[in-house]
Each structure stands twice: as C-alpha cells, then as structure tokens.
C-alpha cells in the first residue's frame, strides 16, 4: 500500500521546471529520496506538504487529495525541514508543545507529549533551555521532536544529518531508523548522502532533473544482474584464480583476498520454484571448495555479489 501517490506532477518556479511530469507511488515504511543537488527532492517534499502549488498533475498523501485537503494532510504529517528553524524566545518544551497545539492537540496533552518526545529524542536534560542556546546537533533533534509530537502517520525528513558531527549523525540515524521501523510511522528521508539512506531506509527513489530515474527496494537494487559471487580468501592466491579460470569461472575483480567471480548462467536447482543464486547452490559450494583445495587456498566466506548503493545511484544518474 502506498502512503503517497503522484500522477503527472509538474512544478515550476516561474519559467524553470523543477519537477517534470512525475508519477510515483511512495510505499509504506522507510523510503529514501536520493538525488544530486537540484534534483527536485526538496521541491517534491514541499509540494507534498502543500507549500508549493503544482502547475499540473494530481496526487494524494495518506488518501487525502493534494491541493484540496492541505490542512488535513498537514495535520497527519510531520516535517523536519532542512534549514535550521525554531520559534524565537521559547524553551524546548514550550516549542514542542506549541507545535503540538498547532496540530490540534489539547494543551495538556501537547505538554505531556512534548516531554515524552523530547526524552525520546535525547533532549530530556535540556528541555527547559532556550532553543537558541542549542548546539547544531540538539537543533536537529528538536526539529525531529516537533515533527513527531502529534503522532503523525508520515514524517518527511529533509537532510536530517545536515551539519552534524559523526557521533551526532550516528545518533540521528539511529533515531530515524528506530522511529520508522515497527512504530507505525512512515518516513521519507530526503538526502544526497547515500550512507544515510542506506542506514535508515528499506526502499529508495532516485531523482534527477525533476524526474524519477530509479526506484525500488534497496536490497533488490543492489543485487547484481546475472550470477556473480564475492569470495573472500584467507590470503591472496594466484593459484586459486588460475584454477577458477580452468573451471570456466570468470574472475571479474580482485581486491586483495576478495574476489568477484562470474558465472555464464545462474545455476538452477531442479524442482525449486525460484532460481537460486549461485552462492546458495550446493553445486557452487562444491565447485568453490574443490578449486580452493586444488590451489591450496583457504576460503573465509562467500555470498551473492552486491553493488554498493553508490554504484546503483551513479548508474541511475547516467
């Protein structure tokens, strides 16, 4: 089931087209919105929030129509904006509970919930401090807290690790991962940082020039077409490589003791519904170990070859 769907959406800033004829279904769960700067990620989020009126096309967010039910959408959605933002003159509790009240929560509930969410975001100790005195990491956390206070079904996170040091980044990604898995909150993370998306999301939508160029589950996108296996030896062995070639296996790449082997065809296991990957095939294991025995090499491990998300991203952008 999708949480948002867009049909032939076009967004223009004057003469410049930021998003062009975009049609996409955003599925439930944690979805990454990837793309280089200027790809249209933030414009897409702003359109979904109703900040920008599309020039043409239509869409739905949580079953509510874009442009017509903007207020109801925003009541059920949370936004963590990219820019540093807060309401001047407020401490964290006042700020977050005010955000809750703006979403329609009764005052007492908003205050109680603000304490809860601030604790969850790791700001429990600093909740009575003026937000203007917060460090960058704390400001990112409070932006997340105000987005979560009213218990939204969907949260848009625009560059959630902007300006964070490695430790703060780790903590923020752990929070995003936690809230988006098993807590009933769907998350769309917009970022140009591939490791952030890889750590927090299960699916990805890659944008370029205002259009979607790739989408799907990250694990599926990373799978390599054809039959390729990554093998790790205890130490580099020329004899192992030679023996592989003799058996008809293609040596695709060698990085120290790590070798990527290619098969001409995937190995099919008889009477099985699915075509198995070579690594899970007993035939492959037999072949691999016999080659290793012949070459006097020791196999540490092997698994189906996977591309990095960076490879997927670069390929999609080509």
């Amino acid at each position: 089931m999708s949480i948002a769907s867009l049909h032939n959406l076009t967004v223009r800033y004057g003469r410049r087209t930021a998003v062009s004829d975009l049609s996409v279904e955003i599925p439930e769960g944690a979805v990454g919105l990837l793309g280089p700067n200027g790809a249209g990620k933030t414009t897409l989020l702003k359109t979904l929030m109703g900040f920008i009126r599309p020039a043409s096309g239509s869409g739905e967010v949580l079953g509510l129509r874009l442009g017509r039910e903007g207020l109801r959408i925003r009541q059920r959605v949370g936004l963590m904006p990219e820019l540093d933002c807060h309401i001047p003159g407020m401490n964290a509790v006042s700020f977050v509970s005010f955000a809750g009240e703006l979403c329609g929560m009764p005052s007492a509930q908003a205050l109680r919930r603000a304490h809860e969410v601030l604790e969850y975001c790791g700001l429990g100790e600093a909740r009575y401090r003026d937000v203007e005195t917060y460090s960058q990491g704390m400001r990112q956390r409070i932006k997340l807290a105000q987005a979560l206070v009213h218990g939204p079904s969907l949260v848009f996170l625009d560059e959630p690790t902007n300006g964070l040091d490695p430790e703060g980044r780790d903590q923020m990604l752990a929070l995003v991962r936690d809230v988006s898995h098993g807590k009933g909150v769907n998350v769309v993370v917009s970022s140009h940082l591939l490791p952030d998306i890889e750590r927090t999301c299960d699916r990805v939508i890659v944008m370029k020039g205002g259009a979607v160029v790739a989408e799907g589950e990250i694990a599926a996108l990373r799978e390599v077409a054809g039959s390729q296996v990554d093998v790790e030896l205890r130490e580099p062995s020329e004899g192992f490589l030679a023996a592989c070639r003799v058996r008809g296996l293609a040596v695709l790449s060698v990085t120290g003791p790590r070798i990527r082997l290619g098969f001409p065809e995937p190995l099919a296991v008889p009477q099985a519904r699915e075509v198995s990957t070579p690594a899970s095939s007993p035939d492959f294991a037999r072949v691999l170990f016999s080659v290793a025995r012949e070459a006097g090499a020791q196999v540490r491990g092997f698994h189906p070859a996977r591309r990095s998300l960076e490879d997927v991203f670069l390929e999609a952008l080509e």
Partner: protein
Amino acid sequence: MSSIRPLESAGPAPAPIADTSYRNYDGPLRPPRFGWWIVARMMTRLAWKRKGFWVLLFFSLMPYLLPAFLLYIRSQDQTRLLDMLAQRSFSGIFYDAFAGAQLWIFLLALLVGAASISGDNRANALQIYLSKPLTKNSYLLGKWTGIFGVLAAASLLPAALLYLYCWGSFTDEGFLSENPYLWLQVLTATLLPPALHASFLLGVSAWFKRPLLAGGIYAGIYFGSQILAGIVSLILRRVGQDEASVTALHCSVPGVLRGLGQHLVDTLPGFYGLPIRAANPMSQSAKPELLPLVLLCVGLVVLGLVLARVRVRAVEVVRG
C-alpha cells in the same frame, strides 16, 4: 578498616526509570480552525515574559494617573488653586491622557510587534508554522491578534480605571450627565492605536529578517512622518491656511491617531487635563478634517496587512 567506594566505580549507569521509547499519539486532534488563537495566545505569553513589557505598561499608565491625581487634588483642595482644571471637560481630560499615552503604546508596539514576523523570518520559523495545519491567513490573524491584544490591554486598562474613578467620584459634578456616551467614545479611541500599530507594524516586520531593523524602520516612519507633517503644517500656517495646517499636522502615524481621537472624543487637545492657551503653537482652533484622517488610517491598516500577506510564505520561491 572499611572505605567508601567512589560513585564512579559503582558500575555501569543504570537504565532510565521512565520508558523513553517512542509511543504513538492516539489522543484527540481538534479540527484546524483555531490555529490563529493558539498563535495569538503564544504571542501574548511571550510578551508577558519580557521585563520591558511591564516597564512600558507602567509608563503607559502614567498619562492616566496624572489627571486622576490632579482630579483628586482638585476635589480635596479647599483653596481652589486648581480651578483651572475645572475649565477642562471630562472628555478633554480623557483625550489628553489618551494623547499622552501614545508614545508608550508606540514603544510597546515596537517591543511586541517588531519581531512578530521578522523574528520568525530570522529563525526560519515560518516553515514550522506553515508545516502545521495553519493557513497563511490564520498565521497572520494570530500575529495580528497577539499584538492587538497586548496593546489593547495596555491602552484600555488605564482608561477604564480612570473612567471608573471619575464615575465613582465625580458623578455629582456632572461626569455622566456631561457626556453619557463617553465610555463608548473612550473605548473606540483607545482601541484605534492598537489596531493601527498591529496592522502597519505587522506589514513592516514581514519584510525584514532582523527585528531591530524592522523596529528601526517603523520608528523612522513614525517619527519621520511626524516631522514631515509638522513642517508642512508650519508652511501652511505661515501662508494663512490655518485649517489645512491643522489637518496637515495630523497627517502622520501618531498624528492620525491624535486627530481621530479628537473626533472620537469630540474635543480639542489640552495638556494633561489643563487647556492650552491660544498663544501656544500647539493650540488648535478647530479639529482636523475627518475624511483625510480616516482615509489615511484605513490606508495604513490596509497597506500593512497587504505587505504582510504578500511577504509571508512557507518557502522562498526563487522565480527564474
């Protein structure tokens, strides 16, 4: 011999007592109709928290306390030294206090209103406000109501106290019989400055990212228009256009408030309950013309609201 172990060596930190894991909110959510009221209430609370607000509120009370004190002295004075005060009508006494409080109301407006939108622009708070179920109009209405409410309280409260004092102490001396509708006139006159300041200052504030700059510009317009109107008025008086000179004198932000105040309370200006002598350059033989003042006042209110509405956006849209 036993020794006390330091706390640091007592082992790993215990887990928190409270459950800090994320729980979803399934409580009630009101329909998003009254967002403006939440914004207004927050603005009022933020104003109350500032010391400057209480200082200025105290000073805005002074112009009403002074005539009240003089009236009290007059009622107690057997030597009739303050008989001059008796020449001034109660309407006049109220107008003088109203005119005297204008500077403090203006300063209070700067304190409360200069940062109303410019502060939000500086802190990118509009993205927070407008990502909630709050329309641009609700946001502006909330900001306007917040400024208006604070200024109206500061303007109306001392006038109401003076009215109650006069009602309690001077009814026998014709306070109610002199002008039975004075309460309505005073109410209208005291709500006029808050409405003008809230509207015009909101518009000015929307165009800046620094509250200090927005306040400075508004103060510049306030005092600059007064100086300009004074110069034009002087020129007109020199050429013998006395009536036009009086109207011109009131064609400024503070002037329009004083001029409309004279019409609303139906009196000519004095000095804290004492009449101004004809030789004084501040004296007026007649009230300024009403129509230009109404047009100017409505124009400033509309201009401010339009400026704010044009400028307030959830996102900066760069048109290419």
